[in-house]
């Protein structure tokens, strides 16, 4: 997709691959044939630059044909480089301007409570994204208003566009910050399906407080030369790099 379009964000897509797969194939209640089903669980990719991963997941889950993926980033495509909810079945919010997804998720969770519906809302946040002030406005609101029908998942790969998170703007101590904002925190290995599903289940059981799953991940996971490097935040692989990456991922 990214090689073809010559645009996109591979590193941050690979770091959340197991998280999105777990959500769409094991955790969330969705009906690809009926993407606007009122009782569906909601998902927001607040780190909108992971769009290529979201599209792949939605296509594999049946929201639209897999063949569409080859149109990613091309003029006239429904698959914009950052997700556009008005164009893609299954995309709940248009994101890409970092820091906005958690608030939208809270709105969805509040609507569920007003309507006495039992759907759950999931929001995946980037680690660098939590440098945005709006995240903390939302964090404060969610605990104050006991928004317990929402789970945030932090893709903590420790790398952002210009470098490692601690060098650009330290976000530590992560667990303590969220705890102090009144959130339940669960720390997991974000590439371990069992841990992701287990954490999501326990988050859903937790009442009165919102939960954030702090998922330790590896940017560019699965491809040796892409792992843990900010270079691959938004780089497009060459033909040779693409082939090497596919070989490694298939192993």
């Amino acid at each position, binding site marked *: 997709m990214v090689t073809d379009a010559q645009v996109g964000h591979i590193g941050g897509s690979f770091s959340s691959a197991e998280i999105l797969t777990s959500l769409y194939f094991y955790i969330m209640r969705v009906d690809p044939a009926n993407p606007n089903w*009122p009782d569906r669980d*909601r998902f927001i990719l607040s780190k909108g630059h992971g769009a290529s991963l979201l599209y792949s997941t939605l296509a594999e889950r049946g929201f639209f044909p897999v063949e569409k993926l080859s149109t990613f980033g091309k003029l006239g495509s429904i698959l914009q480089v950052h997700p*556009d*909810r*008005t164009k893609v079945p299954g995309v*709940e*919010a*248009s*994101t*890409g*301007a970092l*820091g*906005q*997804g*958690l*608030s*939208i*998720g*809270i*709105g*969805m*969770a*509040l*609507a*569920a409570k*007003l*309507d006495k519906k039992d759907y759950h809302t999931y929001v995946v946040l980037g680690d660098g994204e939590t440098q945005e*002030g*709006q995240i903390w*406005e*939302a964090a*404060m*609101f969610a605990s*104050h*208003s006991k928004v317990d029908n929402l789970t945030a998942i932090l893709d903590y790969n420790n790398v952002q566009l210009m470098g490692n998170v601690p060098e650009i703007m330290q976000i530590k101590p992560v667990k303590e910050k969220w705890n102090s904002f009144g959130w339940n925190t669960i720390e997991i290995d974000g590439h371990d399906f069992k841990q992701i599903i287990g954490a999501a289940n326990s988050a859903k059981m937790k009442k009165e407080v919102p939960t954030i799953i702090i998922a330790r991940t590896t940017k560019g996971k699965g491809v040796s030369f892409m792992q843990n490097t900010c270079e691959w935040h938004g780089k497009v692989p060459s033909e040779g790099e693409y082939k090497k990456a596919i070989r490694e991922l298939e192993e």
Partner: protein
Amino acid sequence: MVAMRDAFGKALLELGSLNKKVVVLDADLASSTRATFFAQKFPDRFFQVGIAEQNMVGIAAGLASCGKIPFVTSFAVFVTKRAADQVSISVAYSRFNVKLVGAYTGLFNGSTGASHMAVEDIAIMRAIPGIIVIDPADAEEMRQAVMKISEYNGPVYLRETRDEWPDIFDASYNFTIGKSTTVMDGEDATIIACGVMTSESIKAAEILKKDKINARVVNMSTIKPIDSDMIIECASKTGAIVVAENHNIYGGLGSAVAEVLGENIPTPMLRIGIRDVLGEAGNNRELLEKYNMSAEHIAKAVKRVMDMRKTLR
């Protein structure tokens, strides 16, 4: 005469009874915007977010995605500037059915001062694709606008001022989004106004009558989409136009009218508004005088634009 904010608060309360989908969000200013009326009657549908406008706009987007009709209420400076990116991306780009209400618009908001006087809110909202922009002229139009925007599916920015302004319309008036109204007939020139400047423009037309000048007064409460047909009609019938607005002369109603005239029927025009400065504290009458926006100033501008027409002919 009813204070514009009271008219808004009452309308929102009335709407709350009529439509259970309506929810209201506030960032600790409900007593000033009068969203309190709704909050007291419908506490379950009222969300207090604290002093956090960006989060408020985002939450509204999420509520709208689930079928609610959220009214985001705050001061216009905060809705349109502090939360501009959220309005643009979370609401407008996403096409969510959120109603943004900006209170304390323009200069005439009692003793607040520049930090609380929105002089650029229309320009900002008008430049964001897909947002409807409305500045009601009196209490009745405010009431009807609140009802009508709740029936429209899409993002709307509604301007609210603080104080009492003369009544122009009664219950027989029918506000339609995107349609302007001739409130006084005349053939010598046209004053196109919005918001609280409409009543000031009517006064200006009365002043002009003493000099045997019959000015037409048009209330153009919807600034986007602009009522081009009316502007073109006024230009072709009167050939001279003054625009009056409680906003910076850059980017507001004056600019919108100039765009229509320039592209369709170039016509002499002058703008009455805030001349690219920030406001200051003072009473409304004093501010109208100091910033050259009173009925007398509008009347003078009409005479001047009629002279311009003469020179051009």
